[in-house]
C-alpha cells in the first residue's frame, strides 16, 4: 500500500505537487494519470525518498521507503528505462542491484527470463532498444518480489505485443494481491490496464476514481436515433425539455429522453428503429476535459477540440 498525505513539493515559487492525498490499494492496478508536467514523476520520486517533500509525507506500507530494511523487497520500481550504464550488461546491472538487498543471482536469471531478455542478458545494454530498456527496468522492479510495484511510464516505447504483455503482467501481479501503481500520460494506454485511476493536473488531485465510476462519467446525455419514419418519431418525442437536433435526413440527436423511452415510443407508434445509440464519450475525452485546465504546454488547436 502506498499512502500519500498532504504531499507538496515546491520549486521556488512553482508548486510541482500541491497538497496531494491518495491511497494506492493492494490487489488492483491503479493508473496514475496526468498531462506532461502534472507532477507524476515528482510524486513518485518522493514516494521513493529521492526528493524531499516540502511538506506532507509519502509512505510505503506505513513507513517511508528509506526506512525499510531491504527497500527492493518492499517496493520495486521503474523510474527511467535508460538508467543503466550503457556498457554494463543487463545481467551485471541486475546483479549489482540484487546484492544490495540480499537477492540471489538465481532470482536475477528468473526475472530476466520473465521479461524475455535472457538471451541478451550478457550483452552491453547500450545496444538495447527502448522497449528492451523498459523490459530491463521492469525486471529490476520485480527483482525483490515486492509487495508494491511502481512503474513510471512503463509502456513508453513498447510495441503492441509488449503492451499486451505488460498489461497481463501487471494484472497478474495485482491478482497476487500486490499493489500496482503505474503512471502514464495517455488514458488510452491505461484504460485497459487499470481498475482505479488517480488523475492529477498541475500537481493537484483531480480525480481519485474507480474505472466503473470514470466510465459513468463518460456516459453522455444524448442519443443518436435512426428510424424509418423519422419525422413521425420526432413528433412523438417532442415534449417539454426535449432537445432534438437533426444530423442528416435520416438521423437525429435527442437530449432529454432516455433510449428506453425512445424505444417504447417507436414501438407504440409502429415505427421501425434502425439504430439507437446512447452517446458515449471515450475515457480519453473525459480525461482530456478533466485535465484541460491544467495542461501546461499545449497547442491551441487540440485544446479547442478537448473543450
Amino acid at each position: 500500500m502506498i499512502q500519500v498525505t498532504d504531499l507538496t513539493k515546491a520549486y521556488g515559487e512553482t508548486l510541482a505537487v500541491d497538497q496531494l492525498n491518495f491511497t494506492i490499494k493492494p490487489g488492483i492496478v491503479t493508473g496514475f494519470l496526468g498531462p506532461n508536467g502534472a507532477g507524476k514523476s515528482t510524486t513518485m520520486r518522493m514516494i521513493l525518498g529521492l526528493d524531499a517533500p516540502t511538506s506532507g509525507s509519502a509512505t510505503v506500507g506505513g513507513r517511508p521507503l528509506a526506512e525499510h530494511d531491504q527497500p527492493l523487497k518492499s517496493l520495486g520500481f521503474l523510474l527511467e528505462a535508460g538508467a543503466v550504464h550503457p556498457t554494463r550488461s543487463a545481467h551485471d546491472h541486475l546483479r549489482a542491484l540484487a546484492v544490495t538487498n540480499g537477492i540471489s543471482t538465481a532470482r536475477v536469471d528468473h526475472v530476466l527470463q520473465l521479461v524475455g531478455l535472457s538471451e541478451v542478458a550478457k550483452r552491453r545494454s547500450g545496444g538495447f532498444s527502448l522497449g528492451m530498456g523498459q523490459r530491463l527496468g521492469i525486471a529490476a522492479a520485480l527483482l525483490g518480489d515486492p509487495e508494491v510495484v511502481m512503474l513510471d511510464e512503463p509502456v513508453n516505447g513498447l510495441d503492441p505485443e509488449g503492451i499486451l504483455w505488460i498489461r497481463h503482467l501487471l494484472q497478474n501481479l495485482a491478482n497476487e494481491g500486490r499493489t500496482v501503481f503505474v503512471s502514464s500520460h495517455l488514458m488510452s494506454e491505461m484504460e485497459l490496464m487499470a481498475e482505479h485511476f488517480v488523475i492529477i493536473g498541475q500537481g493537484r488531485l483531480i480525480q481519485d476514481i474507480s474505472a466503473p465510476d470514470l466510465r459513468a462519467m463518460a456516459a453522455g446525455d444524448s442519443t443518436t436515433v435512426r428510424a424509418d419514419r423519422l419525422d413521425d418519431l420526432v413528433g412523438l418525442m417532442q415534449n417539454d425539455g426535449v432537445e432534438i437536433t437533426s444530423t442528416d435526413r435520416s438521423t437525429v440527436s435527442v437530449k432529454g429522453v432516455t433510449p428506453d423511452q425512445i424505444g417504447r415510443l417507436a414501438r407504440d407508434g409502429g415505427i421501425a428503429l434502425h439504430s439507437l445509440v446512447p452517446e458515449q464519450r471515450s475515457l480519453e475525452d473525459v480525461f482530456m476535459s478533466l485535465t484541460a485546465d491544467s495542461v501546461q504546454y499545449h497547442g491551441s488547436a487540440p485544446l479547442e477540440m478537448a473543450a
Partner: protein
Amino acid sequence: MITPLSPASKAIPTESQTAPTLLKDNPMTTITASPTPSVQDSSVIKTKRSSTGKVRTRNVIQSEWIKFWSVRSNYLTLLAAGFATVAFGMIFSAVASDGQAPGPAAFLTNPVDVALGGVGLAEMIIGVVGVMVVASEYSTGLIRTSFATVGRRGRVIRAKVAVVGSSVFAVAGVAVTAAVIAGQAVYAGTEATVPVTDVLDVIFGTTYYLTGIALIGVALGFILRSTAAGIGTLVGAVFIGPNLLNLLPDSITDYFLKYLPSEAGSAILTQVTTPDQLSLGAGYLVFTAWVVGLLACAGALVQRRDA
C-alpha cells in the same frame, strides 16, 4: 529483418484470458530479445523469497564492486594509467641516463623521481576514473536507483570510496613499484641503482597520492553530478590551477600554494623536497584533509539535495 506477426499479436483486441496461453504457444519475437514467457506462469513471478535481513555496507560494497568491474572502460582506463606510469618512467629514465634533463634540474638528481615521471599523466587518468564512476550514474539516472535500493545514501558514497580506493590502490601500487624497478633498470646503464626496499616510502606515498586523487574525483562526481564539470574541475583546479598560480610572485603564493592538493601531494611522492614544499608528515596530513574534506562535503550535499 522484418518480424513476422504471430497469432498472438492478432489476439490483442480480445481481452480474453486465453491470450497469455496464445503467447506461450506462439512465442513472439521482439527485435533481438528472446520469446516472452507467459506471465500466467506465476511460478516465474513468485520465486522463493530470498533471505530477509538488512542492507549492510558490505552488500553495497559488493554491488559497487560488480558495477566497477563490469564496465570495461573502468579497468581499461586503470590499466592505461598503470601502463603510462611504467612506460613514461622508462622513457624518462632512458632520456635521463643520456644526461638530458626531461624537467627541472633537481628532477635529474634522483633516479627514483625520474622513474616516477609518468605519475603526472597517471594521476589525471586515475582522477578521471574517479569522476566517471560517479558522474556516469548521474548522467544515466542510475544514481536514483542506487539510492532508492539501499535506503541510506551515505552507504553508496562509502561503498564507492571503498571500491575505487582499493582498486586504484592495488593497481597503482603495482604500477609504481614496476615503474621504479623498470626505470632503474633502464637508468642502470650509467648510474648506480637504488634498491626498491630503500624507496618503499616513495612507492607508498605515490600510491597513496594516486588513490587520494581518485577519491577526489569521486567526491567531485558527487558534488558536481556531471562528467564534464567533474573532469573540468579536477584538471583545472587540481592539476593546472597550481601551475598557473606558480606564475604569481612568491610573496603571494608562499602562503597558500603548498597547501593545495597537488602541492601537498608532491611532498609525499618525492625524496627530494624543496624548501617551498611541506614536510613529509605535513604533506600527508594536508593531502588527506583535502580528500576527506571533499568527501565529507560530497556526503553533506548528497544528503541534502534531491536525487
